[in-house]
């Protein structure tokens, strides 16, 4: 368990959290509230939503949340209301790689077999600070077994400290690096020819698109010699298929994110590491697993029992619904969140008058916070479901208090890995005060709006029973243990794994192909059904079918790169006010190279003003030898503006106030790097 999980109990009893619905009584943002009943809150919301729908149409209310189980209920409510505009935080976080993986593999959520990997190239995916426990465990296990890990990161992260080698690559240079790597794999014929022939399509077109991206041509972009990248590529290929290029997370370094992450996805395919030990693999759903096994191994619970509503016919504000368009690879439940605020301000392509969010804090997470605040103030209706009066919620008309994760039951969720499984969150204590979980909030609201038929459950237990109706025993076991897993791990191209699987499920023999592999697993949800090394749809939409190198110019000559990352003791921007976690880290000093600091006469703790083309922030400095001379680094999620978050208020600097609200091609991500100037204050 991480520090954040361990601090849940501290959040539970935090006197600062909301325990009743509150309604704004003063101007937006001035912090005057009154407690109201749920009934009053619902009535207000219902009345306002009806007025907006009548005046501007349902499409003019946008719905947004963090991704997770709550999203199911918010989205259902949105569609029932009639708005196509649903969003999650994706474009400020993982959209770069999920869109790239969708383009290549037809699936945005492919898993990495970290623990069996023998050679790993990592571009700033700091699994030891942006913590997912299973990733941290996996990488540690691999290292224990002697795996080689190369960390390419402009700053010396915890992951870099555990790596075999840290290469302080230039910010934005990673795209050029990957182009050169793909070039080397192809033109030195280091790729897995059999795999490419059997499972992929578009190789020749890919080859044509990268022919000019020799390591020599690219080297000037990343401060690593052409020879070094050839060596690294050869070494990676030597260990193939038990080697990988990690596709990262919060992958939003540059506007060329799509090319970078696609190059990574393609490199993995060229290494032939799909469905092998130490490579990438597709999560095995119960249905697929049972089919392969030729017997009923895992129960097939329903993912959601909510009736599938038709997507409202109105066009979305972010254009992702244009068929085969540039942004069409972005999931419909994801969208391009950061476009909402421009749509509010500019009323283009049409006006957004209302915003409904569940546990999302765009003032901290969407670029150009000033613009976000201005937009929030302009809304006719802004409802926020939150645990605290966050930086964003402080501009709401009504805040509905959500139960924390220790106080709420949730539906059964799929937890598919090499073999299928489920998990379920169950409350440890009764909710404090009058807080409610999302399944209840949206159910009650739907009833008031007359959308009962879209929410056919009485409570979460009813929901769960309907999910697993045919498997009462399995439901019981799952609830007892919290998680369950069925069968044995399967990697569809790993000899050892296949042998064990076939031994255990003899019927599965019939499903092996002539190479004695389960090629069924590698049937992709792409148009061709294969792994697409060249994307015909993107080629038509914006000429990005193959890989193209467009120099992602991130700063001017006289500026620093400003980059950021996650820290292990906080979850993005929403744990800084939890007392225990705040004690561990309350501020984010900006890393600056020791030599540069000496030159500028900056000592630890000195204040600097950081200015970008969008805004400026005051920050304290941390001179260190662990960063490039042209780069500044800060942990993100600090610099809170809500006075109700009293211990976190105004501590540290907020990166979102410096970043420009750009939308990058295809991936639609908000770019998290910008050129800045600094001066001592």
């Amino acid at each position: 368990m991480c520090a954040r999980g361990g601090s849940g109990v501290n959040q539970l009893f935090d006197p600062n959290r909301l325990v009743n619905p509150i309604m704004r009584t003063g101007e937006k943002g001035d912090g005057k509230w009154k407690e109201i009943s749920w009934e009053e809150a619902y009535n207000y919301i219902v009345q306002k939503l009806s007025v907006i729908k009548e005046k501007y149409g349902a499409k003019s209310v946008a719905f947004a949340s963090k991704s997770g189980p709550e999203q199911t209920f918010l989205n259902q409510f949105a569609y029932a209301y009639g708005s196509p505009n649903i969003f999650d935080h994706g474009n400020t976080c993982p959209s770069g790689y999920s869109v790239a993986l969708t383009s290549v593999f037809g699936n945005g959520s492919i898993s990495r077999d970290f623990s069996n990997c023998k050679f790993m190239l990592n571009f700033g995916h700091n699994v030891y600070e942006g913590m997912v426990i299973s990733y941290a465990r996996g990488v540690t296990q691999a290292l224990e077994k002697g795996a080689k890990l190369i960390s390419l990161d402009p700053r010396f992260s915890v992951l870099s400290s555990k790596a075999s080698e840290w290469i302080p690559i230039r910010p934005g240079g990673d795209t050029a690096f990957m182009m050169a790597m793909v070039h080397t794999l192809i033109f030195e014929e280091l790729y897995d020819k059999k795999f490419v022939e059997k499972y992929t399509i578009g190789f020749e077109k890919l080859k044509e698109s990268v022919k000019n991206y020799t390591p020599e041509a690219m080297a000037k972009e990343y401060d690593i010699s052409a020879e070094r990248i050839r060596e690294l590529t050869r070494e990676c290929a030597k260990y193939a298929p038990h080697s990988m290029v990690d596709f990262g997370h919060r992958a939003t370094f540059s506007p060329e994110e799509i090319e970078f992450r696609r190059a990574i996805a393609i490199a993995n395919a060229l290494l032939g590491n799909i469905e092998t030990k130490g490579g990438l693999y597709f999560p095995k759903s119960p249905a697929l697993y049972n089919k392969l096994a030729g017997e009923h191994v895992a129960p097939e619970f329903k993912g959601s029992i909510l009736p599938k509503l038709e997507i409202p016919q109105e066009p979305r504000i972010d254009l992702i619904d244009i068929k085969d368009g540039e942004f069409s690879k972005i999931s419909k439940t994801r969208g391009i969140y950061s476009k909402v605020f421009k749509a509010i301000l500019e009323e283009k392509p049409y006006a957004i008058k209302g915003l409904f969010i569940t546990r999302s804090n765009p003032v901290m997470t969407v670029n150009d916070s000033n613009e976000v605040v201005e937009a929030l103030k302009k809304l006719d209706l802004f409802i926020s479901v939150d645990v605290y009066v966050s930086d964003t919620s402080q501009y709401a008309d009504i805040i509905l208090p959500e139960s924390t994760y220790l106080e709420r039951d949730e539906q059964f969720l799929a937890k598919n890995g090499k073999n299928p499984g489920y998990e379920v969150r169950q409350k440890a204590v009764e909710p404090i005060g009058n807080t409610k979980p999302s399944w209840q909030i949206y159910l009650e609201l739907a009833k008031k709006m007359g959308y009962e038929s879209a929410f056919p459950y009485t409570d979460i237990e009813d929901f769960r029973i309907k999910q697993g109706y045919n498997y009462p025993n399995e439901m019981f076991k799952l609830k007892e243990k919290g998680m369950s897993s069925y069968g044995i791990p399967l990697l569809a191209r790993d000899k050892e794994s296949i042998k064990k699987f076939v031994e255990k499920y003899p019927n599965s023999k019939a499903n092996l192909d002539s190479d004695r592999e389960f090629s069924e697993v590698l049937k992709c949800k792409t148009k061709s059904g294969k792994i697409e090394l060249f994307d015909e749809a993107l080629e038509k939409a914006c000429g990005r079918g193959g890989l193209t190198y467009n120099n992602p110019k991130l700063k001017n000559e006289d500026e620093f790169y400003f980059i950021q990352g996650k820290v292990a003791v906080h979850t993005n921007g929403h744990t800084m006010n939890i007392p225990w976690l705040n004690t561990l880290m309350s501020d984010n000093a900006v890393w600056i190279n020791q030599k540069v600091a000496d030159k500028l006469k900056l000592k630890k703790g000195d204040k600097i003003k950081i200015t970008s083309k969008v805004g400026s922030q005051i920050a304290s400095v941390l001179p260190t030898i662990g960063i490039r001379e042209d780069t500044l680094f800060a942990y993100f999620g600090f610099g809170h503006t809500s006075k109700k978050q009293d211990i976190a208020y105004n501590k540290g600097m907020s990166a979102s106030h410096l970043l420009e609200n750009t939308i990058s091609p295809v991936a639609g991500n908000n770019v998290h790097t910008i050129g800045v100037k600094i001066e001592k204050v």
Partner: protein
Amino acid sequence: MKYAMIHDMEKCIGCQGCTIACRSENAIPDGYFRLKVKMDGPHGEFPNLNFNYVRHSCEMCEHTPCVTVCPTHASFMDENGIVDINANLCVGCLYCVVACPYNARYVNPKTNVPDKCNFCKHTHLKQYGEPACVAVCPTDALIFGDLDDPLSPIFSYLANKPFVTNKPHLGTKPKLFVVPNKKGGIKL
């Protein structure tokens, strides 16, 4: 039985999961710590750098200065090798706080009695057989066991890894063993 712990710095990632687990398990007052992990560094010559991840908690010495100086026998070592405090016998002289060469004790502001790590003797260890910090560590950087039991995991770990103890020149013989970083120099 002789309880001991290993902190494998090579595996530790400084995530503070342990310090929070300790706080939660043992109701440590806000602002105080029985256990801290400090990230120290980076050291080295760019780009060949390393961090040290230094655990700061009671070292469970064999030769215990804190017990030796205690005038009332409030500080004592129990039958399992755990250095502990009997609050009922404590007169608040704070000799033990000063005597500890590892600076592992703080004075609990509510009770005015010195407090420190006792391997979760009355809490997690009692219930689950290991301290809370060990149970939560995401990278298994903490290993807990019995030095008198050759089958204890701590035994084979110590047999196979190079380890050091802190301030060995003082002769305190800590039962907190540290597996140092392979990378870079060792500073203890």
